[in-house]
């Protein structure tokens, strides 16, 4: 089980306990599995029922599954796990950005797959707030990578003031 | 009879190096020559485990130029020499019989430089 790092407040990261049970495709949840993380296909087929049972739902999206498919369900979803099959596959950055900026999603967005601290800054900026590092990063290392840059040029989902706002004396 | 050598790039400085009895030598003249493919493969396996020493080790085909073994492929001869447009630069600068043999050898393929690659390509 890889370590889970969660963002806490603005600049802090802590080690967290993963409450979500990852169901295999043919596995049925036990009664005490209150938090479930399932594939998009399974969520579509069975999510309704599990939500009705009072469970909290997390949905795992691979890079080819568009976030648009979740649009109507987002208010009922507690976690969206976006997969980096390879760390150089940047589709999840757009997915997270859309979840936060277009759909106003306020739940957890988790980075899963080949998650390296070299991507921490980009992930945090695009709205990820929970991470399963594949490189044994500690929360401290994660924080250092995420905030290594004293200034950023773009406005993004993290609402950090970009350079052009700082120059105008804002932020 | 087939003849091969094992080459790679140094991780720290990027220099072209050749396997020489368990060590890495910068001069092609010092490269260990494998006339038995199995010995070459065995060295390659050892080299691949040295991932903090070298990058991308691979075996190259050799043939004889006036009795001296040189890489079959033009690309590998350029690696063993240095840029052809700067003959004073790189490994070729020190000269010698092997450097001379590398320079005069002609023909040979880029695509047969790396053992195993040609078959993949076809």
């Amino acid at each position: 089980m890889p370590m889970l790092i969660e963002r806490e407040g603005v600049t802090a990261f802590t080690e967290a306990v993963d409450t979500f049970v990852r169901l295999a495709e043919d596995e049925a949840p036990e009664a005490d599995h209150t938090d479930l993380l399932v594939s998009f296909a399974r969520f579509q087929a069975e999510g309704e029922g599990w939500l009705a049972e009072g469970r909290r739902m997390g949905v795992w999206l691979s890079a080819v599954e568009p976030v648009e498919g979740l649009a109507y369900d987002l208010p009922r979803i507690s976690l969206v796990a976006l997969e980096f099959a390879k760390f150089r596959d940047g589709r999840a950055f757009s997915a997270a950005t859309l979840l936060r900026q277009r759909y106003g999603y306020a739940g957890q967005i988790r980075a899963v797959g080949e998650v390296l601290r070299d991507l921490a800054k980009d992930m945090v900026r695009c709205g990820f707030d929970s991470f399963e590092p594949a490189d044994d990063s500690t929360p401290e290392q994660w924080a250092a990578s995420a905030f290594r840059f004293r200034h950023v040029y773009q406005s993004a989902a993290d609402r950090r003031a970009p350079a052009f706002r700082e120059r105008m004396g804002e932020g | 009879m087939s003849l091969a050598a094992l080459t790679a790039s140094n991780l720290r400085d990027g220099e072209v190096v050749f396997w020489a009895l368990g060590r890495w030598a910068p001069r092609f003249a010092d490269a260990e020559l494998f006339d038995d493919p199995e010995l070459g493969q065995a060295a390659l396996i050892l080299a691949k485990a040295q991932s903090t020493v070298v990058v991308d080790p691979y075996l190259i085909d050799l043939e004889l130029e006036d009795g001296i073994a040189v890489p079959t492929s033009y690309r590998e001869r350029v690696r063993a020499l240095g840029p052809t447009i700067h003959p004073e630069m790189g490994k070729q600068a020190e000269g010698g019989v092997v450097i001379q043999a590398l320079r005069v050898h002609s023909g040979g393929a880029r695509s047969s430089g790396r053992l195993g690659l040609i078959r993949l390509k076809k």
Partner: protein
Amino acid sequence: MYRYDAIDKSVIEDRAAEFRDQVARRLSGALTEDQFKPLRLMNGLYLQLHGYMLRVAIPYGSLSANQLRGLARIGRTHDKGYGHFTTRQNVQFNWIKLSEAPDVLDALAEVDLHAIQTSGNCIRNTTSDPCAGATAEEVDDPRVWCEAIRQWSTLHPEFGYLPRKFKIAVTASAQDRTAAKVHDIGLVLRRNREGQLGFEVMVGGGMGRTPYLGTTIRQHLPVNHLLSYLSAVLRVYNRHGRRDNIYKARIKILVAALGAEDFARQVDAEWTAMDRQAVDLPDIELARIRGAFGYVPFADLPPVSGVFEAARKADPALARFARNNVKAHKVAGYAIVNVSLKAPGEVPGYGHSEVRVTHEQNLVLPHVKLDDLAAVHAGLTAAGLAASNINLASDIIACPGLDYCALANTRAIPVAQSIARRFAEPDVAESIGELKIKISGCINACGHHHVGHIGILGVDKKGEEFFQLTLGGSGAEDASLGDVLGPAVAYDQVTPAVDALVEAYLRERRGAERFLDTYRRVGLAPFKAAVYADAH
């Protein structure tokens, strides 16, 4: 020159520090080569044939004298005393040690230079007109918009890991010196009938194994929405560009697959839904950027310089230089001087301490007083840099080829040298006129052979260096892709073949027609006959 403020400086310093940490992790084994490679590429560090190559960005081709000296210092301290200017206004060092690369980045940062995003599947250095701010042709200074793009694209959190590399060019002149149509995005700045500035946006141009010219998806994008519109294009590409096949991953394939209209529709949908205000630069920031370029203190001079006219009459070499290398400046009494690097030597300092790098691998001194032209010419002559051959047959674009590049099939530089020697006689070269020869050592087309009037592509034929010739390409405003002449020729047959092509042109040409125009009029047949009669 855009002057970096404390924020701009902090970004390149922090990036250098980040890379130092990544190198340390690679050397210790914490990062595998597979993980490290994309990271080092995003900092322009390649492992080439003889060692590591570091590609340094020269944002939109603009360098101060101090930066040029900084590059020279790095060349001496960490390399073998030379570098290569690329077709994308970058400079490459060929002998950098990985263990020293972090120090090189620190040294670059000291002169406000960096290697950020000079490789990797990200937004690369934005290229522009080397005559920006000096030519009377332009409707606005394109560098202001390039700098806006530089900042927006630098470490963009969403677009750092695209399907493939992404190149943007910006021009504001009718005469295109940026090859805008063969970029992933080509931006042409124009005024509409109401006098408002806007960009024509072309997407999906590119070279490589499937060359395309860009298609216009927007005629007149209001300039203040540039960054949000680019974000929309990039988002569509990031999400939908192919990632299963490296040869089909460029945006040109996506645009071709969807059709330009459908692609434009998707971009528009994305753009409409986007919070543009958050992305686009406010006017006050655009004005700040414009101001940060500073003003060149032009003197009030008569349009004709007596000194220069007299010198030109007295010195035929200067007259030739003026004919070929000197172009009109927007300010009376000034000129734009092209310095041909297709001759060995060093660069002296003139022209308001600024130098531009061109995509044709030459330099430009943007603001030279006509009165100083003779002295500049003398200085260049002393340094061996006065070759008066801009756009002539000996002014050849060549990629590094097999002398340096790990991907090469064949050499390119020695081929260029051989052809240049053939046309070295200045009278001969001038009588032939504009002839753009471009050479790539493999299908990746870094030498832009597809858009050469004569293009030369190195191919590997049963293990020997062979060269395929194409005719009729152009990377300028009349862009077109070259047509294959016929079977590839051997290494030592390239120069004779080019010679035969030129002879055929001289036979066929009418009046002052350029090689390209003659080719477009008469087609392949006479050229084919000339080469294959002679070469075989």
